[in-house]
């Protein structure tokens, strides 16, 4: 029995196992007589411990404790002053009031503006119609107003007895006039042309574009232990082939073990895995971290083989480490996370395959801003020859040093141009919850 298996059985005694661990423990006890004997012995010890007689305190300590306290004048030591800020009640109130004030102000302003605009429109319409009224009076909705001319304007007008003179006709004498009437138009109702609600149903209705269900990509879950079955293997390959950028999440009980396994399998496939120093540090310190692996050196079939080989090797252990594989469509958020983890922009990452031309190589040294690195980067000729490499980084928001990571810079130096049949692979090894 390995120490890990022994620990698993100890935890089983205490009932502190997760569902997966409990399954493993059960399997272990069923398959190994040694494990079964060990488990039963531990269980017996635990039962014996529980059965030990309880011993009550031989004397009542309350009196002696109180006596000691009073005799020695012991008092509770005042707690050290805590610099606890008083909750400032007026903060939220002031904030709420200012928000309210702002909303009121803005809405008043908008209301005023809209009113002014409407009034302006109304006046424009009024002016326009007052001109057209004399020419045409066929508009359907009209109201009549008696408009008398203000006195101050009357003063400016020529005297009423002065008759205008037209050269050809001589003096024009006014005809008896009707009271001056101006017709004001109300706003005309809008005319809706070609609106789907008002226009008749005709052949113009656009065709409904059928949803291509076969083109929809959903997240798929594969239990690691089931992946060795032919049907599951075929499904997995089909899923991988459907993606232009492959996004996998591999859940393992121990990310460190999962990474070791991946490294070995990648090596057997001729791909060397470079690990970022930050991720290495975290793994060494045994700090819980998920690991992101990125490579452009594998075809869809090779990715498929990579996963299957990992599962195969893992299944040879009595306690398997790999749990579930998740294939999800590659989203914008994944791209952001990938760029953040690798410390590059999406243009630098350049996920599009090159067609004959060379991929613009942007060495990461440029990001550091030092003259030497810029000179180095500029003097360096872009390497077109792709090496089968993969990079592993910590998939953690704490990973802020990706831009200055030497390993990532070396990776981007070595990766060269990507072939069209080598989809980028973003694989995250995660710890099972």
């Amino acid at each position, binding site marked *: 029995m390995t120490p890990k298996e*022994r*620990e698993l059985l*100890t*935890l089983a*005694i*205490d009932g*502190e196992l997760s569902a997966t661990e409990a399954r493993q423990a059960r399997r272990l006890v069923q398959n190994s007589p040694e494990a079964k004997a*060990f488990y039963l*012995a*531990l269980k017996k*010890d*635990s039962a*014996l*411990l*529980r*059965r*030990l*007689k*309880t*011993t*009550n*305190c*031989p*004397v*009542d*300590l*309350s*009196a*002696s*404790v*109180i006596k*000691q*306290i*009073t005799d020695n004048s*012991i*008092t*509770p*030591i*005042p*707690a*050290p002053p805590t610099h606890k800020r008083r909750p400032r009640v007026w903060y939220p109130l002031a904030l709420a009031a200012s928000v309210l004030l702002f909303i009121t102000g803005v809405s008043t302003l908008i209301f005023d503006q809209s009113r002014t605009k409407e009034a302006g429109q109304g006046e424009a319409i009024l002016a326009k119609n007052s001109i057209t009224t004399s020419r045409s009076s066929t508009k359907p909705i009209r109201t009549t107003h008696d408009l008398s001319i203000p006195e101050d304007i009357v003063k400016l007008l020529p005297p009423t007895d002065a008759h205008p003179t037209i050269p050809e006709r001589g003096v024009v004498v006014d005809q008896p006039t009707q009271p001056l009437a101006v017709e004001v138009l109300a706003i005309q109702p809008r005319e809706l042309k070609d609106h789907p609600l008002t226009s008749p149903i005709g052949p113009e209705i656009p065709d409904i574009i059928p949803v291509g269900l076969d083109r929809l990509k959903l997240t798929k879950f594969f239990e690691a232990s089931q992946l060795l079955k032919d049907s599951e293997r075929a499904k997995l390959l089909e899923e991988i082939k459907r993606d232009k950028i492959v996004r996998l999440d591999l859940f393992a009980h121990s990310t460190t073990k999962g990474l070791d396994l991946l490294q070995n399998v990648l090596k057997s496939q001729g791909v060397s895995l470079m690990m970022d120093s930050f991720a290495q540090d975290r793994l060494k310190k045994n700090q819980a971290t998920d690991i992101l692996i990125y490579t452009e050196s594998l075809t869809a079939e090779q990715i498929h083989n990579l996963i299957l080989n990992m599962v195969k090797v893992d299944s040879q252990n009595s306690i398997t480490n790999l749990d579930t594989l998740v294939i999800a469509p590659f989203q914008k958020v994944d791209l952001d996370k990938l760029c953040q983890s690798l410390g590059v922009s999406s243009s630098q990452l350049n996920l599009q395959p090159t067609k004959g031309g060379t991929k613009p190589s942007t060495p990461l040294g440029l990001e550091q801003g030092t003259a030497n690195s810029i000179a180095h980067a500029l003097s360096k000729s872009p390497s077109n020859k792709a090496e089968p490499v993969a990079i592993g980084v910590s998939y953690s928001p704490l990973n802020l040093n990706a831009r200055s990571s030497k390993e990532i810079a070396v990776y981007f130096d070595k990766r060269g141009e990507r072939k069209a049949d080598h989809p980028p692979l973003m694989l995250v090894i995660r710890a099972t919850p």
Partner: protein
Amino acid sequence: MNADDRRCISEVLNGRTEAFGFLVKKYQDRLYNAILRVVDNREDALDVVQESFIHAYQSLNSFKGDAEFFTWLYRIAFNAAISQKRKRKVQLSLDLPANENGRSQEPEDQSTLNQPSDRIEQEESDQRIHLALSRLAPEHRAVLILKDLEGHRYEEIAEILDIPIGTVRSRIHRARVELREIIEALENKQ
């Protein structure tokens, strides 16, 4: 936190020292039983428990009330017991001193001889487990007592001993394996 405990603590902090007597009475048996298994000596256990109560009384102002009072009290008592046990290092139990065969030298209670054989066997196994427990390191003993005798969960043990839960797991594992080895050795000697 328990309402009675809360009321008692507030009374004590308001100057009514006698209210602390209620807390002592309430927890003394449970605490004594657990501490006795750690220090393996009645006098030492009494001393540790009494000192723990006085220490708790003195530090009552720093008890925040976000955990159970007895959890806090256990933390004080177990830390005191473990440090006392460390000081004394390998000290033979006065209650159950073992001879070279690992058997108790304490005079046997004659009444047990009249009991059926299974009763005697049970007492023998109790003594064996007690002896094995007393041979464990104090840290290992403490976690086993808290787990098996007191029935605490790993999280509670971590809180009482103020250690990470991972440490609790590994300590309990090592304690169980060590206990098994000691018991096997004792059984082989017989």
